[in-house]
């Protein structure tokens, strides 16, 4: 590290660095992200991230859609945690309308969101393993994901783009055998997560690749606005579910796992532990849930009063915030999303200083970005 940047050009003024593109099409940029890396040998000197390869104009589109149609767009923002996204938008509209959501609907939402969190973290574990070069964990975790998706399908009718949460509640009540189904899947999910956990977490090679790599200390992390597992990996126990409980999260007993050094392994470890915590939340919710109405909205047409709100909640990737301005019509005047991935990604340049090419991939993977949300 001493020799870094001593001399960036040789006597002829020829750059000693090699510029390498990673992405937009690259197996490990998690979608269409592009990193321009300047390498000195195997070492990364500089990085310039390029985003916008998936800029679909969602925020603008939201202004042209009615409130109930906007939910479909939110599904597709962070396309790995669809329920969580639906939730934050619905909560924003509910807040501006002053709606009280029935208890059962809240429980259903929590259960589905937590399941979605599990599914999302499972995907992370798998792809993170893939980034590091292990090909089996991804198969194991997708097995779990597939089971969760089957459950989603049974409840909402879709494997990914559910469009299930509604302003004021949910679309329709749960199927009759819901509880048995969930319990069954819970066990299987735990099994799958544990299998991947056993396979990966304490594998020496895995540790060697991820421990001490991409370290970010707590202060820097706060400055960059990291949230979610990326922040908790640095040892800061900040979770919107605990810090500012929404929905019925104050009724559950769960830990907020934190890491120690803020490196890739810690971020991974926090997520693995969160899977177990989420599973326990689901179990508690199942126990506490009782029948009742599922929606507070009588009519279909949503016309919130004039005003604006900011609502935030904890997505698998971190804190998502929605700023909603209503002009009193049936379409939102402005929807602005504070996507967790985008803020987490902003720390990339900092994280990639003085690392290896191979680590660049691992660090990017450990941030667990979803391009749909970054580019919107």
């Amino acid at each position, binding site marked *: 590290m001493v020799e870094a940047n001593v001399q960036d050009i*040789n*006597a*002829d003024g*020829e750059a000693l660095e090699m510029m390498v593109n990673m992405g937009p099409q690259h197996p490990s940029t998690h979608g269409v992200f592009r990193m321009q890396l300047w390498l000195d040998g195997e070492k990364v000197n500089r990085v310039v991230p390029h985003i916008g390869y998936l800029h679909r104009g969602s925020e603008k589109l939201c202004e042209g859609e009615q409130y109930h149609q906007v939910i479909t767009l939110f599904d597709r923002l962070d396309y790995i945690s669809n329920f969580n996204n639906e939730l934050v938008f619905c909560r924003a509209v509910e807040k501006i309308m002053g709606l009280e959501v029935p208890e059962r609907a809240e429980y259903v939402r929590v259960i589905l969101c937590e399941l979605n969190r599990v599914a999302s973290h499972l995907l992370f574990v798998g792809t993170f393993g893939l980034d590091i070069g292990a090909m089996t964990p991804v198969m194991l975790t997708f097995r779990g994901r597939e089971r969760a998706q089957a459950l989603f399908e049974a409840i909402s009718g879709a494997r990914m783009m559910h469009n299930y949460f509604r302003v004021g509640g949910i679309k329709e009540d749960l199927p009759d055998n819901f509880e048995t189904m969930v319990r069954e899947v819970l066990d299987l999910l735990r099994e799958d997560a544990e299998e991947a956990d056993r396979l990966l977490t304490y594998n020496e090679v895995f540790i060697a690749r991820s421990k001490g790599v991409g370290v970010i200390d707590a202060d820097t992390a706060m400055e960059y606005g990291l949230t979610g597992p990326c922040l908790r990996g640095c040892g800061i126990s900040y979770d919107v579910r605990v810090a500012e409980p929404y929905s019925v999260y104050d009724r559950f007993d769960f830990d907020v796992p934190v890491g120690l050094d803020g490196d890739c392994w810690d971020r991974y470890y926090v997520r693995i532990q969160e899977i177990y915590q989420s599973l326990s939340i689901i179990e508690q919710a199942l126990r506490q849930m009782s029948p009742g109405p599922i929606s507070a909205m009588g009519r279909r047409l949503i016309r919130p009063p004039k005003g604006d709100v900011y609502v935030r909640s904890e997505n698998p990737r971190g804190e998502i915030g929605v700023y909603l301005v209503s002009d009193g019509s049936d379409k939102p005047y402005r929807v602005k999303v504070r996507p967790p991935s985008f803020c987490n990604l902003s720390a990339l340049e900092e994280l990639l200083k003085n690392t290896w090419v191979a680590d660049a991939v691992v660090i990017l993977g450990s941030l667990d970005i979803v391009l749909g949300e970054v580019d919107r």
Partner: protein
Amino acid sequence: MSLEYFQVLSVALFSIGLYGVLARRSTVLILMSIELMLNAVNINLIAAAAFLDSAFVGQIIAIFVITVAAAEVGLALAIILQLARNKSTVNVDEVDLMKW
């Protein structure tokens, strides 16, 4: 087939190497030419050992020649590397040690 075949071949290879050493500018290529010359010598040694010498001293000397050649290549290339790094050239006639 007799010893002369090999001797003539060896001389030819040596001459090619010599030409390379004298005529090329790039130090790396000069080094390659030197390798050719060393090989020419080795051919000669081994041929002589095979035809003339029942104790095979030639072969053993050839092994040592190869050893030395390896050491030489390693060192020479390290020097060339430094040259390239500091002077940004690998050409002999551009290397002016006084300016170094």
